């Protein structure tokens, strides 16, 4: 295995509240190898997006990193200055968000927005930037790219807007793409196309990808590894085939079981009783203990550590 591209250790992110800091990401460890595609799966509030925003140092003013280390290609990102981070964002690490509508400026053409990004990171002429932008658009499957550069976002469909944003993200040849629910706002047929596009780009450009989603079935179609988060912690992590066929954490198992499928028996769906823990009211022990059918006293009291074993990791007192 080669040296990891991204290494995150014991990351903590908190929000300032009335009673001090409320932690939403509570000691997250993971790494991404060059060219690897990792699916990060969890429900709202699990800390999956927040962890990735912390990696990009894009937390804004309300949340802050309260502990941990983030290294990208050996460089300590938490020690990097803001100017250095601006260099890294877009050039080395790019990000694609859920809602392609709000990620684009409606008043500027697609071409203008793409060339702005290119020229911020590469010393090229206006014509050169336009060529790079057109190539990127072509690469994500938008035909007649040179002409489409002059279109405004509203002239694109939702799927085309997301393709344009992915084109913008890859235009500077980043080594890591963080895609935060990139298909959630799209129709199912378009969703399938975008997921396949990301798989293709990874293969052709040797891009590492972190694919954040709440849909385990969706990420399992393209990722190498799945990391499951719950209550601000990583609860399980392993090769996709292992997670799909032999998940060890009860939450992962239930998460798979409660999603309806086109195959399998009919009848009532498996449910996870209760609701995910709310910020500031995290259980003392395992965050999933209050909803876990297998929980014992110890689960309520003590937080299980994420234990590595044969390429997999699981944080559970009673793994299966």
């Amino acid at each position: 295995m080669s040296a990891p591209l991204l290494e995150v250790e014991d990351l903590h992110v908190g929000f300032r509240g009335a009673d001090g800091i409320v932690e939403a990401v509570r000691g997250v460890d993971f790494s991404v190898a060059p060219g690897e595609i990792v699916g990060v799966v969890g429900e709202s509030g699990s800390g999956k997006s927040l962890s990735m925003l912390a990696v990009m140092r894009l937390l804004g003013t309300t949340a802050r990193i309260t502990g941990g280390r983030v290294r990208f290609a050996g460089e300590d990102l938490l020690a990097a200055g803001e100017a250095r981070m601006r260099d890294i964002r877009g050039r080395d690490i790019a990000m694609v968000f859920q809602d392609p509508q709000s990620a684009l400026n409606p008043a500027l053409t697609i071409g203008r927005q793409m060339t702005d990004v290119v020229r911020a990171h590469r010393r090229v002429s206006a014509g050169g930037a336009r060529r790079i932008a057109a190539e990127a658009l072509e690469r994500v499957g938008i035909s007649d790219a040179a002409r489409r550069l002059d279109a405004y976002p509203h002239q694109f469909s939702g799927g085309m807007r997301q393709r344009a944003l992915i084109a913008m993200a890859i235009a500077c040849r980043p080594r890591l793409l963080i895609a935060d629910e990139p298909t959630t706002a799209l129709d199912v047929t378009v969703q399938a196309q975008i997921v396949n596009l990301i798989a293709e780009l990874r293969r052709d450009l040797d891009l590492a990808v972190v694919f954040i989603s709440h849909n385990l079935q969706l990420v399992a179609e393209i990722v190498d590894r799945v990391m499951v988060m719950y209550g601000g912690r990583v609860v399980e992590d392993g090769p996709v085939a292992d997670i799909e066929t032999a998940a060890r954490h009860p939450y992962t198992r239930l998460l798979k079981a409660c999603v309806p499928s086109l195959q399998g028996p009919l009848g009532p769906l498996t449910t996870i009783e209760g609701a995910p823990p709310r910020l500031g009211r995290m259980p003392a022990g395992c965050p999933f203990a209050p909803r876990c059918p297998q929980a014992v006293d110890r689960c309520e009291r003590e937080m299980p550590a994420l234990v590595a074993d044969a390429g997999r990791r699981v944080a559970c007192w009673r793994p299966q």
Partner: protein
Amino acid sequence: MNGPILALRGVTKSYPQGGFLDRLVGAASRFVALDDVTLEVARGDVVGIVGESGSGKSTLASLAVGLTRPTAGEVLLDGEPLAALMRDHAAPWRRRIQMVFQDSSSALNPRKTIARCLAETLALRGVPHQAWEAETVALLGLVGLGAETAPRLPHELSGGQRQRVGLARALAMKPDILIADEPVSSLDVSLQAQVINLLSRLAVDLGLTLLFISHDLAVVRTLCSRIIVMRQGRIVEDGPCRDVLERPTHPYTQLLISSVPRGIAGRRTAVAAAATGAAG
């Protein structure tokens, strides 16, 4: 009554398209949201209406509830034209057909407690105020919420709980037909399963006719006995759930089915699907 509880006869809904100048010179075209749709729904049926954005599925729902009027054709409730019912008996018609929306946070008034919200609905049905409290507790129980939910405000509840309140409010009218427009698509998967099971149980227990609008075929398969597939304002396929999913005849239905994520089982077909899907 043995006839269909709800019927659409050649219903078309179109909107003017284009700017003011286009209209001035008479160049404005019309956008057809629903195109000559004929459809019958039997009492007690649980029907899934599937399609992507722009397919007309939500337009169909708002026509059935009487929120918009058709440009052509007619909507019938128990064989009676909706237009006449709206004129002469608007209140009873509206009671009989209720709707649950996708976004539970914008469907509830943020300043009113759950008890108040349900009481207003009960008042509309003519329930005397002495009975409100008991009815509220019963309604909350029906959707799996405790009485402690009643004094809360919407923001104090989770998305799944709010969606249940929306459902309780619709049920407070004792409707015959419930139209649910993407009621679970904004919920986390663990909560989605809870709400689907609840809808399934309520449809049986209360004998509801349920129109379930969704883009998720797997959810529809779990809940519905019949599927209507819509595309660009038209019904392209309609039949028993099992037949449609196992032997889809329309290419669009086939595309929808092949787009449902299948986990690692879907890995081999992933690239092939990309090649067949059109850009955008």
